[in-house]
């Protein structure tokens, strides 16, 4: 047993650090840019041109065919340097691998370069008003008419929709088939007539997700990934394309470190928040849980390296890390004591309102990408082998 990265991986780490320190200046510009979207695209393109995007993809698909451990090293370094997620992150982790596995050669040639360089930004149109956790009950219809699908329906909570150039969506192509066997995986140009995006404000105040309406939207038949009516299996395989979660650990570690430094500065009477025994116990608890998650990640990575299937173990990491993220964010807010509710831009606000944003941000983690309740079901059924709860899915 060892936790060592190979000399080659460590050399790679050095290379990333050097590149980041030479180029991080550009990143600072994004925050201040007049056109932040363009700046975010430029940043991803720059990362791509330096060979840091699509790391484990085949070379024929524009990737680097790098090892899993290099992928881990890269995501650790990016999180360490607090580099924000790439603008096309959703497509890079889900759609890209789907096209590589199930797409036609033509689809790969057409779409992968734009995903990698962020020339084309993608959104994921899965959830609907009537189909969230029970995704297979979705009702957006796609009817094949000659060489085109005609799509009618509505998607919701679609992240990035207003800025997206393309959408990968699930639509029902056979309403008579059992619900998992009548779904297709389609690629839709967001500029197609009939597509309407209505941004939704989220609980934290931001405009992160939207509603997307489809009204007689025409999608070429060639933009169906895999077989017609075979979309559910394909979508599922990429929902399970989860990473070892080690980059999330580094981010949580940085959160906790910021919390510790803040607590050391916050005055409570003639002491600091960090002197309070209750707070010290909480910080220690989060330290324990982050180490637990890190070592769980190493176990998952070892399984992957040894070619053992990840199975449902990703649900363990997702459930645990979203909860941990929320506990840390909640404590950060509470450490501010009486000043915790002071709004941003108000006099006496703590940390310029960052704590509120972090708190709301954390709340979304146990809903998006499969809720914590669904993670519990998955663990109960697929790891413990318990019988399914009575439901018709």
């Amino acid at each position, binding site marked *: *047993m060892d936790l060592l990265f190979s000399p080659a991986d460590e050399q790679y780490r050095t290379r990333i650090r050097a590149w980041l320190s030479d180029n991080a200046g550009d990143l600072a510009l994004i925050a201040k840019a007049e056109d932040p979207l363009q700046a975010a695209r430029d940043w991803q393109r720059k990362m791509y041109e330096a060979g840091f995007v699509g790391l484990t993809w085949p070379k024929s698909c524009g990737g680097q065919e790098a090892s899993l451990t290099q992928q881990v090293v890269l995501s650790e370094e990016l999180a360490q340097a607090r580099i924000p997620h790439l603008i096309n992150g959703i497509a890079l982790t889900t759609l890209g691998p789907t096209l590589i596995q199930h797409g036609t050669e033509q689809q790969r040639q057409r779409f992968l370069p734009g995903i990698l360089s962020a020339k084309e930004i993608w959104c994921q149109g899965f959830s609907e008003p009537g189909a969230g956790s029970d995704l297979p009950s979705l009702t957006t219809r796609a009817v094949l008419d000659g060489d085109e699908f005609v799509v009618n329906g509505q998607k919701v909570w679609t992240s990035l929709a207003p800025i997206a150039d393309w959408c990968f969506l699930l639509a029902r192509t056979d309403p008579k088939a059992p619900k998992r066997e009548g779904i297709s995986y389609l690629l839709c140009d967001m500029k197609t007539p009939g597509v309407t995006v209505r941004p939704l404000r989220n609980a934290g105040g931001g405009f992160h997700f939207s509603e997307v309406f489809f009204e007689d939207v025409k999608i070429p038949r060639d933009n169906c990934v895999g077989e017609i009516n075979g979309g559910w299996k394909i979508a599922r395989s990429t929902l399970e394309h989860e990473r070892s979660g080690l980059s999330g650990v580094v981010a949580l570690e940085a959160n906790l470190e910021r919390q510790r430094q803040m607590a050391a500065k916050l005055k409570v009477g003639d002491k600091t928040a960090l002197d309070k025994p209750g707070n*010290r116990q909480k910080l220690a608890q989060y330290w324990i849980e982050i180490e637990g998650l890190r070592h769980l990640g190493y176990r998952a990575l070892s399984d992957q390296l040894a070619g053992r299937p990840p199975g449902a173990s990703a649900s363990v990491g997702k459930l645990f890390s979203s909860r941990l993220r929320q506990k840390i964010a909640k404590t950060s807010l509470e450490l501010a004591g009486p000043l915790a509710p002071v709004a941003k831009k108000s006099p006496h606000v703590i940390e310029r309102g960052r704590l509120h944003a972090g708190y709301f941000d954390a709340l979304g983690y146990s809903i998006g990408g499969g809720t914590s309740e669904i993670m519990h079901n998955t663990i109960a059924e697929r790891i413990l082998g318990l019988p399914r709860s009575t439901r018709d899915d």
Partner: protein
Amino acid sequence: MDFELSAEQVAMRDVARNMLGERWHPDKMREAIDKPPATIPTDLWAELSQMGWLGVNCDEILGGGGQDILTAAILVEEAGRALLPSTFSTNLASAWAIENSANQAHRDGLLTELVLGNKRVTLAIEENHGSWGPDTIELNATGNDRDDTLHLSGTKLLVPDGSTADLFLVAARHDENLCLVAVDADAQGVTVNAMKRLDGADIVELELNDVAVPASALLQWGGDGESLLREVYSVFTVLIAADLLGSAEVTLQMTSDYAKERVQFGQPIGSFQAVSHRLADILVQVEIGRSLLYGACLALTEQREERHALVAAAKSWLNETAIDATEAGVQLHGGIGYSWELDVHLHLRRARSNAATLGDSDFHRDQIANYYCDRPG
């Protein structure tokens, strides 16, 4: 990068699970709750030695099994599952102490006796101060360099496997420094008073009344007894954490199995989310606990800087995991879960006992707070 058990470790675990399941029955712990504490009979003890498990973590040159701390932890985890008395953890932690002692005579003679099962050795660390750990130790060892004798006086509590021990490794203060001193059970001035744990395990109070031992009875580590003691405390602690993992995991398994079979309202109770989600939470706790345990064992073996904090993390987390798992075990079995016959309460008793051994969760969080919160910057 390889952070899973090796094929040999998995094989040893399976052998241990079978062997202990055949040769030890949980009824012995159940009976011990009303009778004198449970101990390992001589024939089973000899078998454990023949399997090469006593001192499995010691160097082969010294007669041990040549394995690392993780391997020792795997054995202790199996002992926890099987409800075997705490013999592995005391034997293996003592073996580690002796092997890492600078005292050549101990390494050559004593270790062989321990590995062969001829001598049962245990650790006497905690005293009656309402807390745990090396910092609370007061028992005095007096004597000076010219004098070739040490004199020990004081009382140790909660000494595991004390009624069958031939030798105690006693934590003491000597010239303001902490150290470990080997004291024979039959030395003049030693009194062993039986105690018993909630789970029927054998613990004792050890009274030392001006016990004289030769200075060579001092165990040292690079000439520094204090760091040896702190290291031994961490090794012992991580082994108790492994025992807790064993209790948690086997109870989770028993309870999941029951949830698949027991039918109420026309369906297996495991289909009710109030049941299945509680079990899923326990599974998450167990998986995190196992990960922490591996991390702590590896850090100890590699002598990494954060090793004591990782041991504290594993113990703190697994204390709570084992208690949660065994309490859930009682609840989710319903009436039978509350019965004397079912083994679940035996695991609950063991978990409760081990959780209060070598530091509860608050204690270990305090250790981590001292390590993490007060770092500069």
